[in-house]
């Protein structure tokens, strides 16, 4: 593997020539003519235009062309900076929001969207469905670019019937931030969202897809794991199966932010603080994902059993950080007591 050893400065690491890995299909001039002609004649949107633009972009990268004629293949646009959840691991707070929004007029002016393959209305810390004109915005995108693949990450708490119809009609992928398998944990992790409401929305989305006989959007549940939701993770696949959710994305919580309006979870609440529980939970989750046909989008971590605190070195067991009692998880029955983790 070239270029992976440690060298002191960025300048030293500069390559002599790093080659583009593969030759794109067709000919550069061919795709360039198609795209330029489409711009000149304002050609109507079509899958062929998207393919021509993707191939032109690949050729320009292959040839190392600086001044390009292609359009972005993947567009990621922040449409709002407001979120309706206050997750215990996320640094979003109203302080950082200006309540500005992407305007429908901006989309209507962007007659080049028809060349893009993907559009993601996410960016920064926000909930895209909290945009008050989200349906109009997505409809405007669809008018400009009926063949663009749309995908988004959402907490699914704001899905009205109208929005569900828009989502089923327009979206190809959806990642739902679920972050729990039980009501108590969900409502403690993502206040003020309500478990029943979100699950009901997901059921209505499932029913809408079934009634329209479509598999789209494919839905993946996303869970940020910490010590308070580890124990219930193996319960998730059965729930996801019931909701027709096809995949599960597990992300270990990283503590790196401060929210101004609340105390966030700390290092003592990461999965690293309970490695044996994490190993048990992830292996059980893998087994249940196999059982219920849920695809894991990422390989789950494995903590080295020989190095587990409290196993090989009993003295280190004393150094295991105790769970800090937070306002989030101070209610009895929520999260995993330290003793229970030891019993695994």
């Amino acid at each position, binding site marked *: *593997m*070239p*270029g*992976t050893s*440690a060298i002191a400065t*960025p*300048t030293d*690491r*500069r*390559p*002599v*020539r*790093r*080659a*583009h*890995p593969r030759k794109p299909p067709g000919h550069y001039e061919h795709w360039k003519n198609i795209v330029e002609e489409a*711009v000149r004649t*304002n050609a109507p949107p079509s899958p062929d235009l998207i393919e021509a633009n993707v191939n032109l972009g*690949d050729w*320009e*990268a292959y040839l*190392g062309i*600086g001044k*390009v004629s*292609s*359009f*972005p*293949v*993947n*567009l*990621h*646009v*922040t449409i*709002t*900076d*407001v979120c309706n959840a206050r997750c215990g691991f996320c640094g979003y707070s*109203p*302080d950082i*929001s*200006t*309540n*500005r929004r*992407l305007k429908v007029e*901006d989309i209507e*002016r*962007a007659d*080049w969207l028809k060349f893009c393959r993907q559009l993601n209305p996410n960016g*920064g810390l926000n909930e895209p469905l909290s945009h008050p004109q989200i349906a109009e915005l997505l409809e405007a995108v669809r008018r400009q670019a009926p063949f663009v693949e749309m995908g988004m990450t959402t907490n699914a708490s704001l899905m009205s019937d109208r929005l569900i119809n828009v989502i089923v009609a327009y979206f190809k992928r959806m990642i739902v931030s679920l972050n729990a398998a039980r009501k108590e944990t969900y409502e403690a992790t993502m206040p003020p969202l309500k478990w029943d409401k979100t699950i009901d929305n997901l059921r209505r989305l499932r029913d809408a897809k079934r009634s329209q006989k479509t598999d789209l959007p494919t839905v993946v549940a996303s869970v940020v794991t910490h010590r308070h939701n580890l124990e219930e993770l193996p319960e998730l696949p059965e729930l996801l199966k019931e909701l027709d959710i096809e995949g599960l994305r597990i992300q270990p919580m990283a503590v*790196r932010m*401060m929210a*101004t*309006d609340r*105390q*966030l979870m*700390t290092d003592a609440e990461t999965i690293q603080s309970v490695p044996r529980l994490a190993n048990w939970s992830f*292996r*059980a989750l893998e*087994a249940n994902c196999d059982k219920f046909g849920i695809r894991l989008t990422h390989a789950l*971590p*494995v903590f080295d059993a020989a190095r587990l605190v409290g196993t090989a070195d009993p003295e280190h067991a004393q150094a295991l950080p105790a769970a800090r009692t937070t306002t989030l998880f101070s209610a009895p029955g929520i999260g995993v007591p330290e003793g229970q983790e030891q019993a695994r």
Partner: protein
Amino acid sequence: MNAPVKPRHRPPLSREWMKNYYTGREPFCEWPWDDLFVNLSNDTRICCSFFTKLQPFDWPTAKDFHKETSMWNSPFMQYMRKNMGTPDEVPFCTVCLTVDKRAPANKQLVAKAKKESLELYRSLQAKPALHGTIDAVEIPLADWQLTPDGASNDKPVKPFSTSKYIYREMVQRWGFISKKKVLLAGLQRKAMAPFLAEMSDHVVLADFTGKQLAATQQICHALGLDNVSVSDLRGVARLPYDDASFDAIWIEGRSLTVDRPWPLLPELRRVLSQDGTLHLHESPGPGRWIEKFIAGEISHRDLVDNIARGPRIEDRNAFVTRQSLETVLVKAGLKFDRSAPPGVARYSSGDESRLFEDFGIKAIARSLQDPTFLDRLRAEPRALSGLEKCISFNAIQKPPKDSGEADEPDAM
């Protein structure tokens, strides 16, 4: 559960290139050709972990999309694409493609690459038309090192060499480009004047204490900036300017705490043109006053009284919070300008721990009444952690009620 334990080995590469690693292919980044990230300020990036925000995206039409003045084919984008995989590659791209840029061990390497890449980006970006000769100042800058007056930790700054881009980006960020007539009120930060003057037709340098006028004007003249005039505001009964005579006003936060017998904001509003911009730079936050209390500069009684009176700009004990911007401005007929996201500086203790559980003004006021809390405030290094230190923001004239434009509700 008998699920097999699967060993995981992480190669020393950024996670973007894992697939290349495992398939034995050399990493090659196609993101500058393929991906565009646009935020609500229309700032752009090429990937999630890019080293800087790039040129703003002006939502062009397809016909204008590829012009060199547009973001997608801007000089830096062209450079980045042309040199991808060559010895002249953008240093940040090189680091991303050859080591794990997120690994703590590579922190210094990444920081250096970011710095080099930023210099490259700045050198390639189109500059607005500039007056004066700031770019011609020779290094070393023995005679041009300035010391901010009144700062508790006076340290010399080199605004015309190392900090030049920071000042210019600050002026541009707050929209002070190509303004006809600008008022700079408060000269505690002398270096600000030349950077405002080089991008404006005319700048009036006004000082509430009169102490800095001569020195600031001298600096401007030495830099070939004759488009400045001075105005001494000591003892004036009101601002000595005509109504609506400025396109933009820049006021330093420290000037808010200067004694004056007249209300500041209504006067600033009077001399600001109808579509003008008022910028309040580093207005003190509540943390400033708590810092003063810890340092023994103000009494407990004064601190509690001041915080309990709430955010305001009218008097010499002024402070604001991010949440209060709408309300403190509305009294003076002004409105918080949402098009320029405010800059909020907070105290940091290096980690996420903090003493104040709640940063709301009422909660802060309550905490300050508790004697045991005061002891911890004086003793703990994290005492100020998370509190608002200062806030920079833009304000505009509030439209008359009958104009039909309804106020938007504040953020959730």
